[in-house]
């Protein structure tokens, strides 16, 4: 008889007041006992809708059936048939709009905690199984992957499992892309990312760091001189956007990418780090996405007394995951909704001292269906602060496009691909993730990496 409790087993977490001051992981993970209990809530549907909701199509009921009977390693094996980064996805996927969003248990109560179970299984494996995965038999074909973020790692993992000789080229000094420079330690410990990458290396994937494709080597050279038969471009989102309002280049104004890179990749939060960061007292984060939440919560942990999120629409339109918004609120981040910055003011030393904002109201829905915000006349006010973090998205990086003749991009600069295969305008060149879609989620990038891996396999076996 399944567990008919209408609620998920709650995720044990650090207390909000405590965690708001440290960089340790917020969610602590299920125990084996809780995992068994939660797995019992799965009805093992004949037609599992959850699988349809998963961008990489994990056999969710099958792995949960194994958790139910305590066969955690077998559950892990089932997950890794479809996902190369289970410990990462269990933590950062927006399950509420994917697998869990489709779960029938969600109709009358809460869905099965699929993400939490996935995380449990992956953590169990990483803690208990030290044996390296078996290296597949080589098939003699070489594939280059540009970028070691979620799409690149997934593509590399899937191809390596099929016996391809895969090299991943990474511009930074550490592999992981947004998983290491963007998503903070308290949401995704870097040791977990490193472990997932070690697993890929054990499968035979080679990782060449400090290589900027488009500068150090071009896509064409990879194919014509270095002997790669296919290339997957997963180079990520690119250049941070700014609002183009006065004062954006004052000292103390960061893009979220810069702020998070200093904190995460360069470990500026640690005492004695060689990379400087401003330990601001009052921080204004502009934007409402997951990255804005990450920046706000990081600022709090660096010792800020007050952190504001300034977002021009209302709570309903806030694009960040509900869970992230709740976590931020619990930790004390203050949301200034329906507010928009119009100017950043500086002091006599060129440091930020305030943001001038206006109040907004929601007007008619625009083409995207979202109600567009309109300024309320004479509603200006000042928000005193000593740091501003702009988190309003990115525009594609021109490096690869400008050095790859014939690579078609769209009006926004995203690489044009055939959706079903990830194929670009060039033969043998595939792309996926934020480089194609613009800023999206880890799991969508992984889905694109997976699609491309399958297409590359078919292309090289045609």
């Amino acid at each position, binding site marked *: 008889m399944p567990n008919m409790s209408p609620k998920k087993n709650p995720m044990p977490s650090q207390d909000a007041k405590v965690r708001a001051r440290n960089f340790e992981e917020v969610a602590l993970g299920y125990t084996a006992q809780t995992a068994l209990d939660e797995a019992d809530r799965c009805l093992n549907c004949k037609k599992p809708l959850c699988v349809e909701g998963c961008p990489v199509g994990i056999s969710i009921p099958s792995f949960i059936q194994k958790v139910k009977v305590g066969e955690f390693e077998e559950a892990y094996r089932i997950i890794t048939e479809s996902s190369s980064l289970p410990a990462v996805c269990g933590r950062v996927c927006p399950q509420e709009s994917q697998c869990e969003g489709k779960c029938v248990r969600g109709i009358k109560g809460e869905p099965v905690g699929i993400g939490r179970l996935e995380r449990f299984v992956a953590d169990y494996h990483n803690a208990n199984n030290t044996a390296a995965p078996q290296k597949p038999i080589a098939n003699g074909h070489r594939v280059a992957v540009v970028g070691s973020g979620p799409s690149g790692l997934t593509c590399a993992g899937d191809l390596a499992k099929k016996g391809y000789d895969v090299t991943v080229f990474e511009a930074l000094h550490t592999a992981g892309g947004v998983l290491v420079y963007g998503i903070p330690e308290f949401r995704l410990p870097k040791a977990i990312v490193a472990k997932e990458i070690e697993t890929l290396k054990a499968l035979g994937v080679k990782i060449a760091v400090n290589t900027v494709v488009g500068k*150090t*080597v071009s896509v064409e050279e990879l194919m014509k001189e270095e002997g790669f038969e296919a290339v997957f471009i997963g180079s990520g989102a*690119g250049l*941070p956007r700014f609002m183009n309002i006065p004062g954006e*280049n004052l000292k*103390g104004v960061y893009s979220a*990418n810069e702020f998070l*890179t200093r904190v995460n990749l360069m470990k500026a939060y640690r005492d004695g780090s*060689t990379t400087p960061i401003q330990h601001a007292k009052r921080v204004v984060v502009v934007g409402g996405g997951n990255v804005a939440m990450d920046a706000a919560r990081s600022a709090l942990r660096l010792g800020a007394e007050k952190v504001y999120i300034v977002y021009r629409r209302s709570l309903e339109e806030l694009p960040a995951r509900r869970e992230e918004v709740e976590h931020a609120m619990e930790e004390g981040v203050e949301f200034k909704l329906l507010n928009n910055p119009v100017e950043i003011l500086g002091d006599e030393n060129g440091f930020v001292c305030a943001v001038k904002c206006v109040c907004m109201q929601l007007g008619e829905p625009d083409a995207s269906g979202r109600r567009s915000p309109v300024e309320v006349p004479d509603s200006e006010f000042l928000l005193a602060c000593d740091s501003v973090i702009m988190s309003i998205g990115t525009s594609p990086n021109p490096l690869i496009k400008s050095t790859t003749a014939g690579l078609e991009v769209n009006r926004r600069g995203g690489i044009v691909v055939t959706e079903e295969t990830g194929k670009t305008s060039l033969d043998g060149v595939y792309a996926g993730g934020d480089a194609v879609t613009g800023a999206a989620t880890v799991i969508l990038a992984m889905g694109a990496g997976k699609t491309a891996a399958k297409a590359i396999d078919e292309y090289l076996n045609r």
Partner: protein
Amino acid sequence: MYRILEKRKLNPTVTLMKIDAPAVAKKANPGQFIILRTDADGERIPLTIADYDRTAGSVTIIFQIVGATTEQLNHMEAGECLHDFVGPLGRATETDGKKKVAVVGGGVGCAIAYPVAKKFFEQGTEVHTIAGFRNSELVILEDEFAAASTRFVKMSDDGSWGEKGLVTDALRKLIESGEQYDEVITIGPLPMMKFVCKLTKEFGIKTVASMNPIMIDGTGMCGGCRLTVGGETKFACVDGPEFDGHLIDFDEAIARSSMYKPFERAAHEATCNLFAKEVK
């Protein structure tokens, strides 16, 4: 790992290193830069490429000891390895089609001015180099410049090397004496470049300035290196590092470069104390 092939002290605070980095050497061009880290926990610092040898696979960097990382780098010896070395980043200097140029370098900026002068000189452009240092002790690359310039003007603040005065004095003199330049290229401290650009604007001579702002990734991802050029925000790492000097907002660039001064000073002192302890 990137081996240090050669280390040479150019003056008390400026050091030259040749680094084994064939992939970077293969693609390097004057005006571009690299980013390095000395060790696994190190800071990423950008340094402009001072020279390269495609056959030997080496890239030359010249750095001034200003902070903790350059101090640490200066304590490394030939045979040791840098943890990371990535490049070439940024856009190369555009040298095509110029018949006569003035290259104006100041201090350690001359390290970057040199490969630019050399490239122009090798392609047959008439190169007038003006190099400025505080005093004769700080002079670097004198022979190299002499070999890569049609005309070489030496300036120092105290008159101990060449003429006494600023590089802008020398440049004004040359222009007023009737020299006509297709372009002026200036590389050095921000205030120097600001005044070179002010001068050339007066005479309507196209001027390119090489910017070296605070930077992290060097690929356009962080935007930390942004500056205002002609009213638009530009990223030095992907749009530069060279920009039209008449359009750069130098005052803003000068302000931004001081963002971490107190931190840098403290970190440098801490590193020096650490090395002093080791010596004892």
